[in-house]
């Protein structure tokens, strides 16, 4: 029963990821000079490939991909693309922006601290230190840069205020992803599926927020 629900959920997520990738790629094709949408399309494309691998594993081999697999690698790739966006946006800051961001750097450190603590909990629950360490590093950096951009974006008008909605959705993405890890570690299968569906919605929200931000 759970397998069937999970399979249906995977198909929904695949459709959402494909739509998000196509929308971001369309934006990227329209504005070839913009690296933002090209990297965003890469992030969604990577996530889509991971979901495809996971679904095919379930369909063809009849079981879940246990341990580290190509699906996990694609999720890591997706986080790296999103992290690249964060690094790129902070890299475009002027000296005034950097000074303005200085006061928020300490506050932004709370995000990676939470991620690291959560991953220590996952290691305790699942007993898999290697996988969790691999996921913890990019997620912690992504959380730090996203929170920093979110905090500075609202206060300093020069500093990409229009992308605040996008940063908010990335924070939501991180929350949902971590809730998926937690429910998976605790063995709450139905709750995991609920968060998986939330992830599909979050991804669509990310594209919408990014599109609005770029238009503004």
């Amino acid at each position, binding site marked *: 029963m759970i397998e069937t629900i999970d399979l249906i959920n995977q198909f929904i997520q695949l459709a959402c990821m494909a739509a998000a990738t196509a929308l971001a790629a369309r934006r990227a094709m329209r504005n070839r000079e913009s*690296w933002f949408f*090209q*990297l965003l399309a*890469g*992030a969604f*494309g*990577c996530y889509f*490939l*991971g979901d*495809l*691998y996971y679904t*095919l*594993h379930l369909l*063809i*081999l009849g079981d879940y*991909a246990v*341990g580290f*697999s*190509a*699906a996990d*690698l*694609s999720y*890591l*790739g*997706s986080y*790296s*693309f999103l*992290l*690249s966006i964060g*690094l*790129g946006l*902070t*890299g475009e800051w002027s000296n005034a922006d950097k000074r303005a961001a200085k006061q928020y750097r300490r506050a932004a450190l709370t995000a990676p601290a939470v991620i690291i603590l959560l991953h220590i909990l996952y290691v305790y629950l699942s007993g898999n230190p290697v996988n969790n360490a691999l996921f913890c590093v*990019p997620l912690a950096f992504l959380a730090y840069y996203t929170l920093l951009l979110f905090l500075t974006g609202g206060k300093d008008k020069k500093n990409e205020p229009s992308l605040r909605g996008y940063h908010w959705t990335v924070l939501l993405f991180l929350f949902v992803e971590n809730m998926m890890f937690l429910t998976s570690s605790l063995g709450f299968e139905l709750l995991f599926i609920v968060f998986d569906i939330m992830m599909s919605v979050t991804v669509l929200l990310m594209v919408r927020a990014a599109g609005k931000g770029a238009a503004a």
Partner: protein
Amino acid sequence: MIYPVNIFICLAAPLVIALFLIKGRTRRFIAFFICGLLACLLAGYVNAFIAGAAAKNGYVSMTTAQSMVRLTPVCEEVLKALPVFLYAAVFRPKRSGIVTVALAVGLGFATMENTSQLMNYGASQILFVLTRGFASGSMHAICAAILGYGLAFVYKRERMAFTGSFAALCAAATFHGVYNMLVSAGGFWLAAGYALPNIMAGGIMLCIMNAELRIKNKN
């Protein structure tokens, strides 16, 4: 039994001679094509070593099919990426140069893989040889293109060079994993696996032709 090293020597020897006779971009292409052949040769040994070491240490015991789906794509893509990363880091070339080099490595890899496959499993059915040859060739070319375009896109933007390159490598390895998963199954999935890279390659070629036509019309 024909050893993979023998196949490598047979394929690489005339190309090595060509390196001394040809100059310019063609020489660079041939040099990295040989790198691709070498990467394929090494991939066979590295895959077997890692699978054996993992089983020996009790970490995970894999059958050949599981190894093909889980381990092979990652090993092969990393080995294919190494010469491209080295080229980008040392020579700091133009973006188009990175894509060309990545494609040369990918095509060299596909050539060696197809030849080894042919030697080991025979070539009695021409249809199978054609289907597998084009599918594997297209798949390696697409993986190389993902890596090449990804690296070319980020490597001059210093802040995102590392994360972007890693992400491109992950995307290429996962695409390879999906292909291997499909072709390791039988029936419909096998047909879908052989069709997927060819359809994607066709789509990419159409996009490139369309873009070139647009540029021509603008001019």
